[in-house]
Structures are given as structure tokens and as C-alpha cells.
């Protein structure tokens, strides 16, 4: 037997899922996250799920993991102290940046001046110079370098970045500087820009490489811990991490290039949502992945998530591909407070996180959170995790009472206010990916997942007019599902920059052949067998003189046979005309070549659930009361494990399951489909 084990580490819970590769049968569990060292929860969760499913560790073929270790380091400013080595004359490369002040005319008046990610006191200049053809014009002053490295030691840098002018053309000097750094500072990891982003534009290359350095020690520590623990447990399968672009990479690669992991966690949610949507027959979806500390939203149009050439986390934007996901600092753990000065009700951005957590979790939390408000209103029943965790309802009420007192309203109005405010802030994030991109949210369904998404999705669907609201099965572990069902993806790229007249079919065919060899070697190392490999190729092309290129798919065989290049030029002209309404007589320029090897997607069908009648009474757990639309109303609690396909649930109602709770509001009705998805619509 072979199993895929998916793990997603969230701010509050660590979710796990195992999939039987042969049957598609799944089993899931969750444990509380351990923010001080997330690998503790990963390992204990993995042991737990294997024990529960009666799987032995050597049956795990793939250990697939989405992690927010890198993301959190950036968001919380826990980056390590990065030293930066640049060419003489360019010390202020990050200080000057691209000189851009965001925000329109006069935007500078209110723009906070940013601090560079590698501080200037940790940035040194070295004597060396490469020209724009890649020739050394001033040789490296090695003695000078060794002297100046002392400054980096004095500043106690924890990682070093090397970014030299024109190194994208020739990496020889950067390599030599890295060797000297390794001699002078043997324990300090070194990232070089010609490895991380071999592209023209010194600022973007420097920033991306510095970001890589900034999270490298923390990610390396984490990944090494995890690998060691898994090995000592006896696991022999592959350890893969999910990249920001939704593809998988080996843990060894991730250690050296963690800049590709900045959106790893949220990418799992989107890949999971894609998988659910495919079988639910829905093509246009807004995703709402609400966890304990933050909420991620994305837009899926026509069955595809949007991919960007950049990754943005907080105020940091680097050149690494990612799914287009927006994050807001609002989650179940967000703390409600009433500032004395204004007397307004605010929710977040401070979060109680996993520790001390919401008051209701009895982990030491004392401040009222969104979760506590949900408890007070009766949206969360008395226990979570299938009964493994009792909720302190009275504690939650006392905490929310402090808000009510400050606002001089009753405790239920205060709780409802907290929920309204947090919903409004998620509504804002969803508008960023929909309305502000010109999409009408009324033409999209809304998928709520993550631990808290199903609690809030109905209310947010009402704000957005996005129907149906879909709650997938196991919504709390959808990210882990995404981790477990996505593919290995290996990409290699070449900077080419040649005009049409300077190249030919044979040269291009030869380069694509070399690149094929590179990705084949890597994908074999990832354990993807030959028959499961899929290859694709792209060439970025533009008119010589333009700044942006259009990526076009190509077939290497046409270049080998001859005529591929001419065909490419024709396709480009067609595409340029379609995109921009005109063509130019200027010569074409081929900018980059890319080869991608993918593992075949895992054929895991979602499980079908038993068919039942419209009446869900068989799944009823108990009668209940919920505070909806300003009054206490009679409601029913249902057990999700007992609901059947075809059931129709009238709101107000609650559907509980091990990892999540779905709220159906008054005047809404929920239908259950073949795969157990709950689809909520207005009555």
C-alpha cells in the first residue's frame, strides 16, 4: 500500500490528511499548532493520523507539505539580519530602490518611508566590475573583500546575499565572492543573485535574493528538523514542499531557495479549492480561506487560478512566481477591542493566535476574539474536534461582556458587532480580487474553508451576492488536501535575449534539449517515473525594444524539424494584435526560454456520500438556539458525517464536523451534492 500524506501548518491548527493512492480513500485529523517549532505538531500529527488509520510509516510514499514558516517570518518581521555585498558604487541599491513612491500625485505626502530588508550598516561594497557583455573590466579585489567582511561579522549578520552588477550575464565573480565568504564566515548561508534570479535589473535581483537570505536560516532550521524527525521515525518516502505557484519542490531545494515558499500555505488552499470545484462542476469561484490569524482570498476564473510573476507578502514584493492570493490579518483569533479615544469597535489586527488563543479554548487567553463572539452567538456548539475540545462558553461570554460594557450595549449585540466587522474586512479583501479587477462577484460562487471560513461564508456571500456558497467536505483540511493532490512541478529557464536574425531553429532546439535534460534529471530525483512525466515549453518573445514579453507555448519537435521559429513569430504577431490591437515592423526578440516538467496529477476522486431524501432529520443531533438578525431563533444542529446527498437543510442551522462548523443563516437553504459539498443559496 502507498499513501500520500498532506500537512498544512496554520497559525492555530496543523491539518493532516492521508490519501490511499490506489482507492482515493482519505482520512484526516488536526492538532494544535506549535508556533515555537511548527515541526513538533507536524510530527505528532503525522504519528497520530497514521496510528488512527492503521498505516505504518514505511507505507508513506510522499510527505507533502505547505508551510507558512517563511511567510510568518516576513509578516512578523522575524527575518534574520542579512548582510549584502554589492559592487562599489551601489551600496544604496535597496535604499534608492526603483525611486517609486506609490499612491498617485502627491502620494509622497503620506507615504511611510520603508526600511531596506538588508540594513545599510550591513551592506558592503567591493571593488570589481562586469560590463554589459559579461566581461570582467575590474577584477575582484579579494584582499579588500576579506577586510570588509569583518564589518559583516561585527554587525552579526546571520545570512549573506551577493548581488553584483551584470552578474546575470556571468556569475564568475559572484561565485568567487561566495567562496571567500564561506572561508571567512563558514557557518553563514550565502545566497547569490545569479542563482536565485538570473535576470537583468539589479534592484529586483538584489531584493529577491535578500528576501531569500532573510528567511533562509529559519526555513533551513525548520526543514532540517522535520527531515531528521521523519527519518528517525522511519519514513523513507519523499518530503516535498508546496511552492507559492502551486507546484511541489523537494525539501532540499526549498532550503536553499525559500523565497519560493512565501505563499506556500495559502497556495495549498487554492489548489484544494480547484480540486473540489472541478468535481462540483463550478468554474468561477472566489475562495475564502479563514484561519485563526489571517484570511486568504483568491479568484478562480474558468477553472484556473491566476498566476503572477511576483510574490507579495505584507509590504514585500519579490520576483518569484505565485498564485494571485490576497491576505488580510483577520481570523478567528483576531482580538476585539474598543480604543478609549474614539470609542469605536475594532477587530484585529492583533491576534490571540494558537497561544494563548481565544478565551473559549481555555489555553490561557483572556481577550475577546472573533471565535469567542461566535461562541456567544451560538454559532459554535459546545465542543470542537469531534468532542476532543470543550469550549468555555461562560469564559467567552465574560470576555465579550467587556466589549459590551465599553460600548454600553448588551453582550449579544456586541458579539454580533464583532462578527459584522470582521466580515466587512474579509469583504474588502474579496473586493480586491473581484470588483477591483473588473469581475462582478455576482457571477462567482464563494467557497468557504479553513477552520473558520464555513462559519462566516454565508454572511459574506450575502454581502457579495455570490451564490452558491460552497462548503466542501473537511473544509478545515482543504489546504492539506491541496498539498496532497497537486503535482511535482520542475521549471528551468534561460535568459536568451537574441534578435530573430541572431538565432535559428537548430540553436533553439539544442537549448530546449539541454533544458529537457535538466528538468528530467530533477523530476526523476523527485521520484516521478518516466511514464508519469509531462513536459511543456515556453518562449518569451517581444518586438526588440519593448520592455515586456509575451510567453508562448512551443513544441520542440517543430524546431528540430525546422520551421518552429517562423511559426512562433506568426503566433506572436497574432497574439500581439489580439492583446494590443497592432503589430510592428520591428524585429522580434526572443527573451527567455523555459521548460517545465510535471508529474501527472494524482487521480484522486472525491468520495461520494450515501444518497438520502430531502429531509435531513436523520443527521439531526439536537435542537439549538442561535442569535440571528438581532434575535434568538430556534435552530437545529446536524452532524455532517450523517448527512446524505440530496438533503435540504433550512436555516438557521449548524452543521458540525470534526474540523469545522458550518453556519446556515435565517432565510437561506443548503443542499448537499453527490460528494457531500454543502451549497447554500437564498430561499
Amino acid at each position, binding site marked *: 500500500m502507498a499513501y500520500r500524506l498532506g500537512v498544512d501548518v496554520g497559525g492555530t491548527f496543523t491539518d493532516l490528511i492521508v490519501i490511499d493512492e490506489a482507492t482515493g480513500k482519505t482520512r484526516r485529523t488536526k492538532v494544535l499548532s506549535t508556533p515555537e517549532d511548527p515541526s513538533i505538531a507536524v510530527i505528532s500529527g503525522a504519528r497520530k493520523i497514521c496510528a488512527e488509520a492503521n498505516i505504518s510509516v514505511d507505507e508513506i510514499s510522499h510527505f507533502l507539505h505547505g508551510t507558512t514558516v517563511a511567510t510568518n517570518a516576513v509578516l512578523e518581521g522575524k527575518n534574520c539580519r542579512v548582510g549584502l555585498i554589492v559592487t*562599489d*558604487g*551601489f*551600496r*544604496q*541599491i535597496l*535604499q*534608492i*530602490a*526603483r*525611486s*517609486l*513612491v506609490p*499612491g*498617485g*500625485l*502627491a*502620494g*509622497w*505626502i*503620506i*507615504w*511611510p*518611508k520603508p526600511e531596506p530588508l538588508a*540594513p*545599510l*550598516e550591513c551592506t558592503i561594497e567591493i571593488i570589481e*566590475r562586469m*560590463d*554589459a557583455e559579461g566581461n570582467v*573590466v575590474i577584477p575582484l579585489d579579494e584582499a579588500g573583500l576579506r577586510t570588509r567582511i569583518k564589518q559583516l561579522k561585527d554587525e552579526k549578520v546571520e545570512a549573506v546575499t551577493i548581488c553584483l*552588477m*551584470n552578474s*546575470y550575464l556571468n556569475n564568475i565573480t559572484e561565485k568567487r565572492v561566495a567562496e571567500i565568504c564561506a572561508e571567512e564566515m563558514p557557518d553563514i548561508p550565502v545566497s547569490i543573485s545569479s542563482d536565485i534570479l538570473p535576470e*537583468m*535589473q*539589479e*534592484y*529586483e535581483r538584489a531584493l529577491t535574493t535578500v528576501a531569500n537570505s532573510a528567511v533562509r536560516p529559519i526555513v533551513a532550521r525548520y526543514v532540517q528538523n522535520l527531515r531528521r524527525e521523519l527519518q528517525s521515525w522511519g519514513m523513507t518516502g519523499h518530503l516535498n514542499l508546496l511552492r507559492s505557484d502551486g507546484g511541489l519542490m523537494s525539501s532540499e531545494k526549498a532550503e536553499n531557495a525559500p523565497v519560493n515558499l512565501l505563499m506556500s500555505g495559502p497556495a495549498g488552499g487554492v489548489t484544494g479549492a480547484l480540486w473540489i470545484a472541478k468535481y462540483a462542476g463550478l468554474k468561477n469561484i472566489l475562495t475564502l480561506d479563514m484561519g485563526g490569524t489571517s484570511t486568504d482570498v483568491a479568484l478562480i476564473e474558468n477553472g484556473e487560478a491566476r498566476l503572477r510573476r511576483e510574490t507579495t507578502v505584507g509590504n514585500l514584493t519579490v520576483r518569484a512566481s505565485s498564485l494571485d492570493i490576497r491576505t488580510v490579518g483577520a481570523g478567528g483569533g483576531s482580538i476585539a477591542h474598543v480604543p478609549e479615544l474614539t470609542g469605536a469597535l475594532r477587530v484585529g489586527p492583533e491576534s490571540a493566535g494558537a497561544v494563548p488563543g481565544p478565551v473559549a479554548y481555555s489555553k490561557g487567553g483572556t481577550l475577546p476574539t472573533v471565535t469567542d463572539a461566535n461562541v456567544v452567538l451560538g454559532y459554535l456548539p459546545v465542543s470542537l474536534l469531534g468532542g476532543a475540545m470543550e469550549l468555555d462558553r461562560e469564559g467567552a461570554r465574560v470576555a465579550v461582556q467587556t466589549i459590551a460594557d465599553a460600548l454600553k450595549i448588551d453582550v449579544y449585540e456586541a458579539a454580533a458587532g464583532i462578527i459584522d466587522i470582521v466580515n466587512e474586512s474579509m469583504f474588502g479583501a474579496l*473586493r480586491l480580487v473581484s*470588483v*477591483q*479587477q*473588473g469581475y*462582478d462577484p455576482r457571477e462567482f460562487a464563494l467557497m468557504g474553508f479553513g477552520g473558520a471560513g464555513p462559519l462566516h461564508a454565508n454572511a459574506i456571500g450575502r454581502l457579495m*451576492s455570490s451564490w452558491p456558497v460552497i462548503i466542501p467536505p473537511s473544509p478545515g483540511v482543504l489546504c492539506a488536501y491541496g498539498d496532497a493532490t497537486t503535482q511535482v512541478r520542475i521549471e528551468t529557464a534561460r535568459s536568451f535575449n537574441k534578435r530573430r536574425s541572431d538565432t535559428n531553429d537548430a540553436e533553439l532546439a539544442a537549448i530546449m534539449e539541454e533544458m529537457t535534460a535538466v528538468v528530467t534529471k530533477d523530476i526523476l530525483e523527485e521520484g516521478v517515473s518516466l511514464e508519469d512525466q509531462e513536459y511543456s515549453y515556453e518562449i518569451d518573445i517581444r*518586438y526588440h*525594444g*519593448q*520592455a*515586456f514579453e509575451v510567453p508562448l507555448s512551443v513544441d520542440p519537435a517543430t524546431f528540430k524539424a525546422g520551421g518552429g521559429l517562423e511559426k512562433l513569430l506568426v503566433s506572436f504577431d497574432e497574439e500581439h494584435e489580439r492583446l*494590443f*490591437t*497592432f503589430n*510592428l515592423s*520591428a524585429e522580434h526578440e526572443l527573451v527567455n526560454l523555459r521548460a517545465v516538467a510535471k508529474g501527472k496529477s494524482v487521480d484522486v476522486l472525491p468520495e461520494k456520500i450515501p444518497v438520502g431524501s430531502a429531509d435531513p432529520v436523520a443527521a439531526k443531533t439536537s435542537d439549538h438556539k442561535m442569535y440571528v438578525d438581532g434575535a434568538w431563533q430556534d435552530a437545529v444542529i446536524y452532524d455532517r458525517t450523517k448527512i446524505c446527498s440530496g438533503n435540504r437543510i433550512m436555516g438557521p442551522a449548524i452543521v458540525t464536523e470534526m474540523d469545522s462548523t458550518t453556519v446556515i443563516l435565517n432565510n437561506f437553504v443548503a443542499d448537499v451534492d453527490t460528494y457531500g459539498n454543502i451549497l447554500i443559496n437564498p430561499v
Partner: protein
Amino acid sequence: MTAQILQTNTAAFDPVKVDPVTLDIIENALRNAREEMDATLFRTAMSPGIREQGDAFPLIADHDGKMVVGQFGSFIDGFLKNYDGTIEEGDVIWLSDPYSCEGAVSHNNDWLILIPIYHDGRIIAWSAMFGHQTDVGGKVPGSLPTDGNSIFQEGIRIPPVKIYKKGVYQEDLVELVLHQVRTKEWCRSDLNALLASCRTAEKRVIEICKRFGDDVYISATKDLLGRNKRAMSTLFTSSIGEEKVSFEDFICDDGMGFGPYKIKCTMWREGDKVILDFDGTSPQSASSINFYLNENMLKMFFGIYMIMVFDPQILFNDGFYDLVEVRIPDGSLLKPKFPAALSCRTHALGRIFDVLGALLGQRQPEFLNAAGFSSSPHLMFSGNDEKTGEWFQLFQIGFGGIPGRPFGDGADGHSLWPGFTNIPNEFLEKYFPLRIDRYETIPDSGGAGLNRGGNGILMAYRFLQDGNISIHDDRWFTYPWGVNGGAPGMRSRKLMIRADGSEEVLGSKVDNIAVHKDDVLHYITWGGGGWGNPLERDADLVALEVKRGLVTVEGAGSYGVVIKDDGTVDQEATISLRAEMTPQISSDVFNFGPSHEELRANCREETGLPAPIAP
């Protein structure tokens, strides 16, 4: 003369009530269409000025020509008043002559494309975009002669003409124009990019109309303009007084040895109407620094400054235009008479922003920013590539220090212009025969203050072959002023170090300077003024900035901070120095530095250049 608009559908639009959600969606869809205009332009343009630096400005206007989204405000009204011809479905207007459009574009280099957007036989909107062409012909590469004395020397002047006539592309016309310029391929591509960008907006607006209906769309744009007018009216009444306030600032010289030129503005409110009167501004220059200031554009500048200073939540569009009246004397630097030269208007355009900022902040110094990098210095470098024989021509915009602000320190080496970015040095080196030896900010160039002014930039260009350069800059004679106790920033400077080691100081506005292999030009821009009393700045922060190379040990003295050999603050010495310096800190709101008489007397000694002669 008035344009005659032809529409096959003469039915009037029905005003309808638009629900708030729909209004929100339409506003955001329009804003997004505007961003898509930028994206299309940058993706398809070729000149570094547009594709790398973003020197281009889009707008989408309602059917009457009022800007609903965009940056510089609408000029369509003025164009329609002056255009003697018909506008029909399928027409696209192209123009560059500032005198033909009341200064909607302000020099011949800015090419403007304007599309009337028709749907079902009626104009429902307008889209427009203008972008700076690297060259439009004329007496010098770059078409901005620093000694120009007539607009006829500044390259081809395009009156409003139809580049598309009822949908038919006028190829002969385009070829005739492109034949006049030095950078034909760039101009051709940039022109196509402007067209594509406006077409994008056209497509999006029509989509919105199809989705919601023409009446809803038209009513929505009206509501958006009305919303802005209401907000601005409240803001004007609460923030601008009825008594007059004045401010004056200067352009250092006109490139012909005369200067400084004064820009003076007086502001007051009558009811809910604000008046901006430029009486007292210098007469027009005989040279090319004149700025034909479009009154609507000034209203937009003013409105945006108000919003940013007092309430950044307000969304801006043309809705408030009726609330502002602009008076500019004929024959002045800001309303020169045809055929005055206009090409080097960038200095006056920039200085307008310092003047507006000072006017608005004068009564409420807590909102006042210092003077900044209120211009966009240029460098032109051109010649024949010695390897390929091809003509090359670089037009590059430089940056400097953002002013000290109530909000905090000014950024070092950044742009005050929206959306502008620097050209990556690797790009410059790849496509032009030069190498950048140094690219850094100049320590101490930002004025000292509780909040420091941003530092100016030193860019050292090493030329790798023969060519010619032009320089356009200012603030080399007068200082970027500080406020509320802050000191002025450092002035600009241009130094040529020839391959043989000899040095020469270059003027701030010069053309036709020959350069040779291994000559190095030090292009030094100015710093932002400081904000607030520098003696109150955290001494440890001053020490940290010394370590960071942003302030020198001597420069720390301007903050009354004494730095020890180990780089830390000498606490005792600092306390006594600060006590000693306290009486020297000016209690005036503005600190302009020395008087013009003193500047003149010391000019050659301090700057290496002769003092300008009063015009």
C-alpha cells in the same frame, strides 16, 4: 470655433437612480480600466522614458469630457472649444501643440491621443493618454533646446488632427510626422502604444455599458462627479480661509544666463469657491522655460494636494472644478504668448507643486511639508554607436530627495512624480555605450530637521565613446527650503571629469556638450528641505544614519549631535552643543537660506558658475 459632434442617435440619456453597489462596481471597473491603460502602454512602448520611467498620463472622461478617473484632470472641454471640425464615430484625435489645446499638453514632446467612445450611436465617454516622446525633431536631440526662443525650434507641432478618420488609419499623416523625428522606431511604437492604451479603455467602457445599460452608466458617472464635489466643498470651507495668503518661489535661470524667475500665487476663498491668482508672477522668458499652464490641470493639482494634505480618503475626479477659479496673467511665465518657446517647462511645472504645498500649509504649519525635488531633471545622451553605426539617444529622468514631512523623514533619491521609476542601471549599460560608476545618495544633502529631508542622488556616468549630452536641472542657485525650524536641502551640481583628469562645472541647463571615451559626468541632484527643529531629532538615530552613510560626522553637527570615534553619540558634548545651537534655530515658518543678494555675491565661489542676471 467649436467642434461639431455628430451622433447618429440623438436621444437624450435618461437619468436613473443607481444603487450604491452598482456605483461601487462601476467606479472600480473604471479605475481598473485606467490601470489597464497604463499596463498596456508600458508593455508595448519602446522608449525608456515611457516603458521604464512611466512618463505618460491616462484619463477616462464622462460624455461631457469631465475626468472620472485619471491623474491630470480633463482638458477635453478646452479642446472642443478650440477645435474647428467634426467629431464622428471612428475618429481618433492626435495632437501635440500646446497652443492648440489651451495647454492640455505643455510641450511638443507630449503626444496626446483622444478617442470619443461611441455606443449605439452616442458618445458615452472619452479616453485619452499622453506620453513624452524621446525626440520630436528640432534643433537639438531630445527636442528640448535650453536656448530655444520660439516653439518653431522645438520640433514638429501637431495640431489636432484625425489619426483615424471614421475608422480609417491615416498612414500618410503618421509617416509625415515620423519623418521629422530622430527616433522614428520609438515614436512609432510609443504612438501605437498610446492608441492601444486608449482602445483598451474604449473596450472596457463599452463592456460596462453593455452590462449595466447606457443610462445607468451615464448616471453613475454623474453621481461619482457629484460625490467628489460635495466632499471637496466641505473640505474647502473647513480648510481654506477667506483672507488672502501668498507664496512665491523661483526658477533659478532660463538657460541663457537670466534669472531667477518668480512664480507667485495668492489664494483665498469666497463662499465655497477658492481663487488661485498668479498675479505677480514674472513675465514670460525669452527662452524655453515658459510653462503654458492649463487651468483645469492646475485645479486638479490643487485638488489632489488638498486631498493628500487634509483627507486622503476622498477619491478625486473633475467633479469639484466649478469650486476653483484660476487667474493667470497673460504674457506671464505661466501664460506665455505664441510663439514663445515652451519645451523646458518641467522646472516651472515642478515648482508649482512647492508653491501649492506652501500655500495650503501656511495657515496650518502642522500640515506643511518642506520644499522638495519639485522638478524632473533630465539627461540626454546621443550619438552614433561606434560598433553598430546605429543612432542612439537616451532621455533619462533623474530623482532626488523627498521633502521632510509632518509624516516623517523624506525618502532618499525618490520620485515626487506619480508612477515614475528609475531606469535600471543594467538596462542603461546594455542598451547605451555608457557605464554607471556610482549610483548613490549624497550624505547630508537632505535638509536637517526633526524629520530629515531626503538625500539627493549622485549618478556618475562613464561614457564609453564619443557623443553629445544635454542637461536640464534647476535649484542650483536657490535652495529647497526647510519649514518649522528645518534647514534647507543641498543644491544641485553638475561636474564633468574628463578622461585626462581635468574638471569642469557644467550649467544646470546646457546642450551640445561633447563627451569622449572615459569622461565621467557627476550628475548631482538636490535634497529635500528639512521639517521641524533638528535639535529635537533622536541623537541615536543621527548616529545610526552616520553609520549608514546617509549623514556624515560633520553633518551630524547640524543636528547638534557629536559623534565619538567609535560611532556612538557623545552624550555630554551633544547636550552642550544643542544648548549652544538652540538660539540659532529660526522660528520662521519657512527657511529659504541666504537672500538672493547673498546668493549672487557668493555664487561663483559656492557653485563654480556665474550668478544669473535679473531678467
